[in-house]
């Protein structure tokens, strides 16, 4: 008798990509997207794709396309805060092509068992890329919905093997005077440093990003490697990461050092804790010109992350 054993290559019909999703994929996959990204890109974009994603992604619930439709690729890639290239929102799109992203090395040190210089592909398993549609809320009161491509930050941290004493993750981002015209003028201390508590970094929502909209991450969005922490203000999500250090003490982060009364270490999205210069109660979902969206505590991810801050005074630890 012939016994047919299933191999991983025999996919059930339930795994077949719905035709409209398959048909719409070309709108989003650029011809230049690398093959490995292409695999993840099958899940890319469009309301149908978002719906499809809802059934395939275990850790991140998809957003409702009715209330949180994807922000256009052109918007996401032309409106950036990346002061190394200048403080104007359009500066990164204008100048970031100068950034050399290949080769790229990430120095891993501190309280890890596997320190050293890593390439992007040593940190990120490109076969495990997934698409995560996240709300992105800037401390400046605008927000977007972005289909990121990446892997859980926890998977990256597991590769470098944290020591038990490690309490915090510090990420340092690139400084290239010859490639970044904003360094001399933006008025910040370089390099840009951000950090997370270990449990925040290990949270399944925390993402190490290498792409968006099924494409390789554009330079202005933080190529080749950035983090995105969807329940925190955007400035926590460091771009173009060159160093990951695990520490016992809380790292000194750039904006918290620059203006401590305006920016804290936690920077959780919170409508009740105002920025000294503006209320955080409402936000503007680009490209809408109206600031008519109520801001949600933890950017709407409270059911998953609120427990991280149980018992903490969020007014004090802003």
């Amino acid at each position, binding site marked *: 008798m012939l016994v047919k054993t299933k191999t991983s290559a025999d996919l059930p019909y339930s795994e077949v990509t719905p035709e409209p999703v398959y048909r719409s994929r070309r709108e989003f996959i650029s011809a230049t997207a690398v093959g490995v990204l292409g695999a993840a890109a099958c899940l890319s974009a469009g309301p149908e794709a978002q719906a499809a994603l809802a059934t395939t992604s275990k850790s991140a619930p998809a957003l409702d396309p009715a209330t949180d439709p994807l922000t256009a690729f052109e918007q996401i890639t032309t*409106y950036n805060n990346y002061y190394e290239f200048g403080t104007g929102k359009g500066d990164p799109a204008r100048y970031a092509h100068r950034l050399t992203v290949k080769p790229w090395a990430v120095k891993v040190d501190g309280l890890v068992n596997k320190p050293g210089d890593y390439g992007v592909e040593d940190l990120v398993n490109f076969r495990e890329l997934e698409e995560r549609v996240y709300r992105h809320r800037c401390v400046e009161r605008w927000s977007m919905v972005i289909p990121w491509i990446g892997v859980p930050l926890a998977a990256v941290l597991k590769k470098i093997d944290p020591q038990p004493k490690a309490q915090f993750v510090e990420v340092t981002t690139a400084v290239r005077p010859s490639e970044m015209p904003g360094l001399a003028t*933006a008025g910040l201390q370089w390099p840009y440093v951000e950090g997370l508590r270990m449990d925040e970094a290990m949270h399944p929502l925390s993402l190490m990003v290498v792409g968006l909209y099924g494409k390789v991450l554009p330079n202005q969005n933080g190529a080749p490697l950035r983090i995105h922490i969807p329940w925190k203000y955007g400035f926590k999500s460091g771009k173009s990461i060159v160093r990951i250090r695990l520490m016992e003490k809380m790292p000194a982060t750039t904006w918290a050092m620059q203006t401590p009364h305006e920016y804290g270490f936690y920077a959780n999205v919170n409508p009740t804790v*105002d920025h000294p210069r503006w209320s955080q109660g409402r936000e503007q979902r680009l*490209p809408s010109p109206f*600031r008519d969206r109520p801001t949600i505590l933890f950017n709407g991810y409270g059911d998953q992350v609120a427990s991280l801050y149980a018992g903490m005074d969020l007014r004090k630890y802003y």
Partner: protein
Amino acid sequence: MLSRLRQGVTALLSAAAAWRLFKPAVFLACLAPGVWLGVRAWRFFRGGDFLALGPDPAKTLLHETGENALVILFITLSVTPVRRLFQVNRLQAVRRMLGVWAFTYALSHVSVYLVFDQLCYSVATCEFNAIKEDILKRRFIFAGMTAFSILLPLAITSTSGWVRRLKKNWQRLHRLVYVAAGAAVVHYTWIQKSDIRVPLRYAAVLLLLLGIRVVFAWQKRRPVPYGRRRRPPGAGGRP
């Protein structure tokens, strides 16, 4: 060398000011950035071109109206110094119009804030409490509103009727424009997150303009050396 340069500038400015269409030309120059902004706004709101105003339309409207107001206000303030330094009295003819244009852009700037930021496109949606809180709690909005509240009475009293009615007080009142300009520069400085080079440049220009006016006032008071005094026959001397 320097005096020839000055003569050249004087000749150029005199020719421009003497031009029959000088006033309409200045008017159109002030109108143009507003029209350009309006065209893009039309394409954005009616034409479906969602990037016509850049990635953040409200901010584009807010920044451009604010910047136009500030630039035209500074041009207004430099009319008198330029007129006196280069002795082109006809320039005075456009000063009031420039001032009213600066106010027009300032009014649009405030309106953009009220409509898009505070949803004041209808009374029901308008966030009155948030506006009050903004003015009282945010120093940059307080500074901006101060500048606007000064410009408002100046714009209202800019008509010839008010000039006549207020007599000497008109000039006294309108000197407040320097306070408005100062408040506007402070407003601009305080909204910056980290890079304040551009607002500081405005501040430097404002100090320069104010300095020139102080020197003028001082020259007016200083007695002219005796031998060079020229007194028109019959005119009373200044003490």
